[in-house]
């Protein structure tokens, strides 16, 4: 005899998802909209926001600036994570880019047009060289080193009084108006998301993923994984050092706060909330973490309490991250299927 023992949830791809899986099978406007819609909405929102200065006020424009900065750092974190390297010190990259452009601009008078790209590259090379000896470490051991390095650099600058010491370097060349500035950093963020996603679709990117799954088998396939990890660190450093260099010119100042722990913690929180591995999730995460923190300022002392609770709800409720959750809801529907058990 069969008895009904309850229900289980079944997830099924929507018809439109199945039809649009293959890019050549697109037949209708509705299907094109299904594919392009979410991307278009995201990009449009990002492009329109800087134009709404009169409505949002300069304050929220600045919040967007910080958000995009954290998004770039979060993208960087997500790439490292995809190779199996957990970074607790994104501030290293940020600070390296920030100090590099500060030095080039103040000492040699390089304009930001030259100094920012140069600082992006130099900062990334510097960070890669610094982390190279510890790339063979894994998991928390690598994380602890990256945690210590920004603090170490901070103290070195403080003690030796190089690069302006505790005073920092001020009076740097400003960036053009906030609207153009925002468009530049938004464009860089979007290019970075796209670039990273494409990278991971190539065979070269597949090696990164493989190192995370089982580095021993990658060695046994004839790859020098130390070299691959170094390349990953360099590629991951680029958006982060750019963010550092860019924000430095925005503030016209670089100092010890460039190595602040915020730049290490917020990107990590962003990726965990947004969902690792997709890059777009990292970006979405930053767009929740940073504005939420600003929005809660009206709550005064309770701000941190509410902030922590919201983050907690996200982590517990959506452990795989917001992006993967939204994508699943978008692509699949759920239904309850009765479970039947055979009674003996």
């Amino acid at each position: 005899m069969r008895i009904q023992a309850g229900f289980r949830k079944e997830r099924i791809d929507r018809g439109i998802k199945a039809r649009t899986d293959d890019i050549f099978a697109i037949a209708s406007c509705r299907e094109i909209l299904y594919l392009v819609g979410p991307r278009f909405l995201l990009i449009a929102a990002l492009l329109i926001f800087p134009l709404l200065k009169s409505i949002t006020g300069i304050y929220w424009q600045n919040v967007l600036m910080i958000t995009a900065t954290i998004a770039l750092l979060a993208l960087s974190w997500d790439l490292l994570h995809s190779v199996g390297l957990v970074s607790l010190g994104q501030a290293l990259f940020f600070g390296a880019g920030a100090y590099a452009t500060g030095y080039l601009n103040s000492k040699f008078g390089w304009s930001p047009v030259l100094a920012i790209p140069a600082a992006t590259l130099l900062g990334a090379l510097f960070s890669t060289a610094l982390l190279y000896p510890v790339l063979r470490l894994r998991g928390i051991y690598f994380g602890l080193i990256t945690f210590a390095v920004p603090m170490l650099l901070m103290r070195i600058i403080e003690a030796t009084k190089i690069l302006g010491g505790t005073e920092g370097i001020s009076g740097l060349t400003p960036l053009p108006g906030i609207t153009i500035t925002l468009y530049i950093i938004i464009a860089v963020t979007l290019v970075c998301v796209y670039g990273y996603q494409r990278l991971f679709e190539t065979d070269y990117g597949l090696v990164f993923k493989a190192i995370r799954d089982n580095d021993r088998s990658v060695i046994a396939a004839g790859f020098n994984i130390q070299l691959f990890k170094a390349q990953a660190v360099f590629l991951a450093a680029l958006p982060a050092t750019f963010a550092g260099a860019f924000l430095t010119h925005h503030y016209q100042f670089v100092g010890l706060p460039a190595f602040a722990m915020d730049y290490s913690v917020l990107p990590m929180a962003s990726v965990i909330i947004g969902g690792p591995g997709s890059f777009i999730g990292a970006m979405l995460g930053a767009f929740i973490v940073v504005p939420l923190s600003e929005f809660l300022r009206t709550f005064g002392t309770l701000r941190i309490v509410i902030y922590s609770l919201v983050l907690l709800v996200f982590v517990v409720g959506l452990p795989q991250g917001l992006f993967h959750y939204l994508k699943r809801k978008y692509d699949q529907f759920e239904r309850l299927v009765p479970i039947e058990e055979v009674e003996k």
Partner: protein
Amino acid sequence: MSQDTIIKVAGLSKNFGGVKAVNGVSFELKRGEALGIIGPNGSGKSTMINLITGFVKPSSGKVFYNGRDITGLSPDKIVNLGIARSFQMAKPFYNMPVYKNLIIPLFSPRARKLAGGRHGDRDESAIHLLEEVGFERDSHIPYKPAGSLPHGYVKRLELARCLALEPDVIILDELFSGMSMSEVAGILPFLERLRDEGKTLIMVEHRLRELFRVVDKAICLNFGEKIAEGAPEEVVQNEEVKKSYLGSEVVSGA
């Protein structure tokens, strides 16, 4: 060293602290030969393989490959010279589809060099390799996440991973462990074919009956020392091998 010696191990030793995992082992292997390494647990078989493939650096002794001293070379360099190995604890790349697991070795410096500029479609090569080691071509298994593979298939995948490198020497560390009788029976003819095609094989195994269908030479290790060497039938008749490894049970080869 004769012209067709492909691997020569000379006085190889490895100490882990005070433990002599491998102690002064020497042997030679000719091109196209199939060697079985047997011995009780902890006798140094896997360490032996790690020493040859560079995953562990020897305390003393040398390894020669095609007459070239490869002692102390990094494991990725040794692989690219043509010595591929499998792992006893085979772990696939969990988060990829099964066939993507083979893109990694197919994309390796060695495979790319051998393929020249015309590597064609790596995805197609991967599916083809899977088919060779016994995955059904038209099934959906190659496209499933590798994390969902049953153990027997993981082992086959591990073998395919070695073959993707087009190696001259294939070293298999307990390929049969954890495989059912029928799974082993399914893969044996394939190993015999590899041997007949002239690949040089080194196999570490506990399943002697099956092992001896493939190899034409065996050595037995005990406490890191070589206690017997020769044709498989001779090795299992050796008194010391019987005492330390086989017990009273008599295993007849082939």
